[in-house]
C-alpha cells in the first residue's frame, strides 16, 4: 500500500473515533442532565402499602421511579389517585379488577398481579421501592 492510500483511511478512523467520543460525551451529558432534572423535581416521599395481615410484604411505591414511566402526572392523577389528600386504599381483588395500581399493572401495560416473577415484585418490603 502506498502512503497516499493510508492517509484517508487513518483520517476516517480518527474521525470515527472523534464521533464516538462525541456521542459518549453527549450521552453522558444527557444522562446527567436528565438525572439533574429528575432530582430537581419536588416529589412526595415513597408511599408504603401493606397493612393487611396476609400481606407477603410491604409494597413501597416510588414517585421517583414512576415519573420515568410517564411525563404527565395526570397519567395517574386525579382519575386514580388524589393529589391533595390521601386516596382510599383498595383491596387486592379490587386492584386486580383494575382499580388503583391495577389500572396499569394489569399484565399488559405493566407487569400484573399474577406476574411469574412472584409477589415480591411489588411486595419487596420496606427499603426497596419501585
Amino acid at each position: 500500500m502506498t502512503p497516499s492510500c493510508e492517509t484517508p483511511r487513518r483520517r476516517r478512523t480518527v474521525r470515527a473515533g472523534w464521533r464516538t467520543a462525541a456521542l459518549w460525551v453527549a450521552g453522558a451529558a444527557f444522562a446527567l442532565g436528565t438525572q439533574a432534572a429528575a432530582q430537581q423535581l419536588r416529589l412526595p416521599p415513597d408511599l408504603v402499602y401493606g397493612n393487611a395481615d396476609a400481606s407477603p410484604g410491604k409494597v413501597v411505591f416510588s414517585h421517583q421511579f414512576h415519573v420515568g414511566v410517564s411525563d404527565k402526572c395526570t397519567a395517574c392523577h386525579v382519575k386514580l389517585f388524589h393529589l391533595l389528600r390521601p386516596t382510599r386504599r383498595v383491596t387486592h381483588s379490587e386492584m386486580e379488577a383494575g382499580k388503583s395500581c391495577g389500572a396499569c399493572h394489569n399484565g399488559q401495560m405493566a407487569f400484573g398481579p399474577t406476574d411469574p416473577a412472584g409477589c415480591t415484585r411489588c411486595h419487596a418490603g420496606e427499603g426497596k421501592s419501585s
Partner: protein
Amino acid sequence: MKGAILFDSTKCVGCEACVGACKEANNLPTAIDPKLTAYTWTVVEQRNKAYVRRMCMHCETPTCVSVCPVQAFRKEANGPVVYDASRCIGCRYCIMACPFGAPKYQWDRAVPIVQKCIMCAGRIQAGKEPACASVCPTGATTFGDRTQLIGEARARLAAAPKSYVPKIYGLEEVGGTSVLMLSSVPFSSLGLRTDLPMAPLPMLTWQVLSKIPDFVAVGGAFLYGIWWITNRRAKVQEALAQEAASQAAAKH
C-alpha cells in the same frame, strides 16, 4: 396581602400536576380537555418548545367584574376574581369581555353557568396555597404576595438575563394581573396576547360613561335654547298677526 401566582415557563416541565390538582380542589370532572372549558380551569400548552399555563389571569381591574350586569363577578381584596353562580343570569357578557378568554360556559347543560379559575379562593381564605401552586414539583407555579412575587420575578430576570425575555407578563397588561408570567421565548409565541393596552380595560367604558352626564346637561340646555328661540319666534309672529288684525279692525 394581595395573593398572586407567578408562573415561570422556564421551570415548567409540562407534567400537568397543576391541572390534576385544580380538578381535585374544585371537584371538576377528571377528564382533561385540551383547551380551557367550564370543566377544565387550567391547561398546560406546549408552544415554541416551551410550556405555558392557561388560566384566569385575575386582573387587578377585571373586565368581567366591570361588565357583569348582576355583579356575579367580584375582585377579592386578597387577589382572586370570584364568581357567584346564584347571581348569574347567563348573559355571557363576561365571556365576550375577557381579554384572556378565561370564563367558559357550560354549553352542555340545560341550566348552564359560567366557570373559570377562582385562584382557589377558599383555600387562600383558609391560609393555604392554591392547589396548582401547592403541587407543582418544579416550582414553576408559585403563590405569594403580588409585590413580593414581582420582586422575585425581577430577581430572576436580573440573575439570569440570558434565560429570560426581559419582561414580566401581567405586570402592566390591562392595568396589571394577579397572575405573573416569565418566559425564555417571546410571550406572543406562547399564545399570550401582546396587543393589550397597559391601562385597565374598564377605563375604555368609563371614558365614555363619565362624559354622559355632561353630554346630557349641555345637550339639554342646547335643545332648550333652540326650543326657546323657535317658541319665541312663533309667539312674536302670533303677536304681530294679532296686532295687524286689531289695526285692520280699527281702520274699518
